[in-house]
């Protein structure tokens, strides 16, 4: 399983490094979204700073949809999904590999968007470890759910519109928990509230990674 996961993740990351879709399209889209949010909120810097955590996670969520659609479309061209099925690779390994590749892209994206939030909204990070840990946990959850629902929509002609419809409500707990933790990390100290939301992210990640490992194979076969 781990060997197959490493093989798939390496392949997907190599494809992304070559195509530069993440760098040239997804990241600029996220930054544009942050700029538009700033326009919508107006010139009040304190309002922008207060809204920064939520706006950051909304931007990440939108970018996740794009990253997942890209990850699915790579396998849809030239019968590549059939090739993966025919290879006899462990489906759990395929799931973990594809999710890991998406997670790696999201981490880079979050660094860019995090800097954007600090620069554009004047947000001040006071508990950096809480920001880092919550971002990593949120990333794992988004990559796992995205890969799972990406596979569900993969065989359908309406996948481009169906994926956000399926993914966004499912990812709502990540948006909520991530926002609360970032709010806690930005007002200073380590309040209990922040760590409680961290626990929610841990449970969410564990549940969706486990579901993905178990059902990715049957989904691939039936898609």
């Amino acid at each position: 399983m781990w060997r197959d996961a490493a093989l798939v993740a390496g392949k997907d990351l190599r494809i992304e490094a070559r195509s530069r879709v993440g760098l040239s399209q997804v990241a600029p889209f996220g930054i544009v979204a942050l700029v538009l949010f700033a326009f919508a909120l107006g010139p009040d810097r304190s309002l922008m700073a207060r809204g920064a955590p939520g706006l950051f996670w909304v931007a990440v969520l939108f970018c996740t949809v794009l990253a997942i659609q890209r990850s699915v479309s790579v396998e849809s061209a030239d019968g590549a999904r059939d090739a993966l099925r025919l290879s006899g690779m462990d489906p759990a390994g395929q799931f973990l590999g594809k999710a890991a590749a998406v997670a790696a892209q999201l981490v880079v994206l979050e660094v860019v968007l995090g800097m954007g939030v600090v620069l554009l909204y004047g947000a001040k990070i006071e508990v950096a470890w809480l920001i880092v840990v919550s971002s990593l946990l949120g990333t794992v959850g988004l990559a796992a759910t995205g890969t799972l629902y990406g596979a569900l929509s993969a065989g359908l002609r309406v996948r481009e519109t169906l994926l956000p419809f399926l993914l966004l409500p499912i990812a709502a707990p990540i948006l909520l928990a991530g926002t609360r933790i970032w709010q806690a990390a930005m007002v200073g100290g380590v309040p209990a509230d922040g760590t409680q939301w961290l626990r929610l992210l841990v449970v969410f990640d564990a549940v969706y990674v486990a579901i993905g490992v178990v059902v990715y194979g049957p989904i691939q076969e039936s898609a």
Partner: protein
Amino acid sequence: MAPAAPLPPALFLHDAVALSGRFPLLAGVDLEVANGETVLVEGPNGAGKTSLLRVCAGLVPLASGRVAVLGLDPVRQRNQVRRRVGMLSHASHLYDDLTVRENVRFAVRAAGAGTDRIDDACDRLGLTGRVLKTSAVKLSAGQRRRVALAVLAARWPELWLLDEPHAGLDASARDTLDELIGEAASGGATVVVASHEAHQVEALATRAVTVAGGRVVSQRAIVRSAGKPAKDVAHVA
């Protein structure tokens, strides 16, 4: 000492029915292919040739009937079956942003095969020099087909399922393909070729199976006369 148990047939289908929604892809196929046989599957468009190969690869489950591939259930034991089966389909199964070499290497490693045959396979298919470092997106349709064949040659599976393998290939690649099929068969592999180009494949096959309406409607042995060129064959009903 007890005699060794006979090997199961490479392919066994009994009353195999496969559906796409409510549309029958296979409508009761009975077919047995022995180990080491090279079988031509012929029939008109929409007869069920591709569906038959996809069922054998475990890509399409049966709605009813029985299928065994290399003695295994291609649905319940799908990963064991797929690691031993190679399929060349209409699609080339290439990633556009990877180079030729990266595509072949990934496909071979994904199938759990050794990478020691890759260079030789690419050489045989004329994939050398700069072509190896070229992104798949820049390849012609024929070159993509050559890469797909190189993957098969590098994997060297026990069961070769070839769907219109000559389509899109130039004369030299067709000759190489025929050599590969001949070598696979002489090496003990089983080869099933679905093709409209019967004259090309009959020179290599030991049996021809005609499919129509999702069923096997006739079978004939292909007997080569001694001393005659391989392409001169006599048909036995």
